[in-house]
């Protein structure tokens, strides 16, 4: 209250002190214009003056000739928002407010798609959100239809159409059953944005190894590793072979190469050999020297 009072006094004193604020009136302005379009303002002032158009996103200043309309050319005011127009001439000040609204034609989309990589067979695992902008990077807040498409090789394309609210639209999709790159497209008007979603194999199913003697060593080798959908497990995945014998143990972590993992461990009679990858256990072999 105290501050408001101070403010009022300040403004009042300012008004008394400044001839510029001695008189004021209203400008004849359009209620709203489309961003980037041309328009004109009619002034009643009979003296030379200055027009200010002020908003957080843009400011303009024009000299005004008496009796002539003030023309704002196309592209001069392109930032959507609420503006204050102030015309000062001599001791008079005219003010007015108007809106600059975004164009209705989408020009760019900000497409937030997640994740970039996910295992196969996940329900609603993929999400996409879109913000729609016009050619001047103004958020188009008017409802606009947006279509989303997820194309997975050798699988049916998933499609959704969503109407944006306040410039935003979103959807979710399921990942397919086959590994590979899926194309995730969002489209509004003539504009589209594409993201690639990498579908990767899930955890291995049925991890199995075999063993044979090579010299003084046992050569261990897994069958080709596949997930439960039959996709080959990615190369580089670590497979752990563990050999235990009377009080001793040998461990080796090897990466999968061409779908199989191989290792050599010492041949101990009666040794138990197991295989695992991550938290998935495979078969166990008990070794007996022949």
């Amino acid at each position, binding site marked *: 209250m105290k501050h408001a009072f101070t403010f009022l006094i300040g403004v009042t004193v300012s008004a008394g002190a400044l001839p510029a604020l001695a008189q004021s009136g209203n400008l004849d302005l359009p209620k709203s214009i489309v961003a980037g379009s041309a328009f004109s303002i009619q002034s009643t002032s009979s003296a030379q003056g200055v027009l200010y158009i002020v908003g957080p996103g843009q400011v303009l200043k024009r000299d005004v000739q008496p009796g002539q309309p003030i023309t704002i050319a196309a592209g001069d005011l392109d930032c959507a928002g609420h503006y204050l127009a102030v015309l000062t001439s001599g001791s008079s000040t005219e003010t007015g407010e108007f809106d600059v609204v975004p164009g209705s034609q989408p020009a760019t989309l900000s497409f937030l798609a997640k994740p970039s990589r996910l295992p196969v067979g996940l329900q609603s695992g993929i999400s996409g959100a879109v913000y729609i902008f016009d050619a001047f990077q103004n958020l188009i807040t008017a409802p606009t239809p947006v279509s989303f498409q997820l194309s997975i090789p050798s699988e049916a394309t998933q499609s959704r159409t969503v109407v944006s609210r306040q410039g935003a639209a979103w959807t979710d999709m399921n990942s397919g059953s086959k590994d590979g790159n899926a194309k995730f497209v969002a489209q509004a008007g003539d504009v589209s944005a594409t993201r690639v979603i990498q579908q990767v194999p899930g955890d291995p199913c049925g991890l199995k190894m075999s063993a044979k003697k090579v010299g003084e060593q046992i050569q261990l080798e897994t069958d080709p590793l596949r997930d439960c959908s039959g996709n080959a497990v990615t190369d580089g*995945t*670590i497979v752990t072979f563990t050999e235990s014998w009377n009080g001793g*143990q*040998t*461990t*080796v972590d090897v990466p999968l190469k061409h779908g199989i993992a191989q290792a050599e461990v010492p041949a101990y009679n009666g040794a138990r050999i197991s295989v695992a990858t*991550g938290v998935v256990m495979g078969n166990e072999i008990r070794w007996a020297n022949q």
Partner: protein
Amino acid sequence: MTGGRLLAVFLCLATVGLVVIGTLWPVPAAAAWAGGTGGFISSSSTPEGAVNNFANDLGHHAWQEAYSTLANKGKFTEQDFVRDMTGSYPGLRTYASLDNFEVRPLHASDNEAQVELRLHWSTVVGTFLDTRTLQVVKNGDHWAPVWPIVKEQHVPPQVIPVTYLRWDVIYRGPEDDWGAQDVEAPHVRIIDMHPVERAAGVVVLGELLNEDVVPAYVSVKATLLGKNGSPIATEDSFDKISHLLLPKQVTPFLITFPNVSLSDVDSIHMDPTSSLVAASADPVIEIQNQKLSPAPDAWFSGSLVNQSGQNVSIAHVLGTFYDQSGQLVWVADQYIDRALLPQTPVSFAIPVPEDLARKISTERAVVATYSPGGFQ
């Protein structure tokens, strides 16, 4: 005049005397700069004195002087001796400095003695202990140590074909292009977590799995929460973890909270982080002959075999220990002081706390490696 002369003589003599005292019995700071506890005159007239001198030379990296004092220097070259001390290939020993040493007489006769020399080497990743039992023999009026040389195995020149896997990452760049796609951070999961109370404070043990198909650079942070839900302390695993995890790889981790009592802890908030990094599947390190020597004096030992074609400068062994029910009991680690050459076993031995050793039923080890200029 006489008084003046006397004063001059006194001051000169006192100065000389003080310098002599300071040199024969240097103050600790001066002794440290002189490389040991001895003064200007250090004697080899006793077996311990001879080993002290020898160790002082090692501390100064004065290999030639150290070698020249040995009684058995005819049995190996100075180069062999230097290789024993610093390693043939760049490793932890190469840049180690002697932090301190202990000389412990074991046995002595008129002409021969046995002395244990414990060399505490300081390295960038911590200290390691090199214990050698030395024979010391009398040679005229002085004693000379017999150095038990450890000759490093030499790898013959060879070509080892490698077809290792590697991952590269192309980043989007630092510019702000909102909505543009970036590569997802790897998905990691804590598969085990278990706090224990030790003398030093609370220790949080656990295991972390990279469940993704890409390599992950991981770290684990833990926050202890008190009874009222407020945080007591936050610590992270630092080097008690293998930070690089290939797909489906598991690492143990250990986080220490000094001076915290488990009774004050209500819950623990775990915060694993992961980021996608360029990595190589090489080198593959096989861990052979893992054994747990029973308590007391429990050790987890074995040997590492580098199955790849490149040298590994520094290897870090992390041992994970489980009880009969498969629950995590302890995590211990050791840095290997010598480089791992292809197909050349290097042994390790990690001490295990005696009280925990009695509970251990199974154990498992993982190895993290460092080579200059290589992938992390």
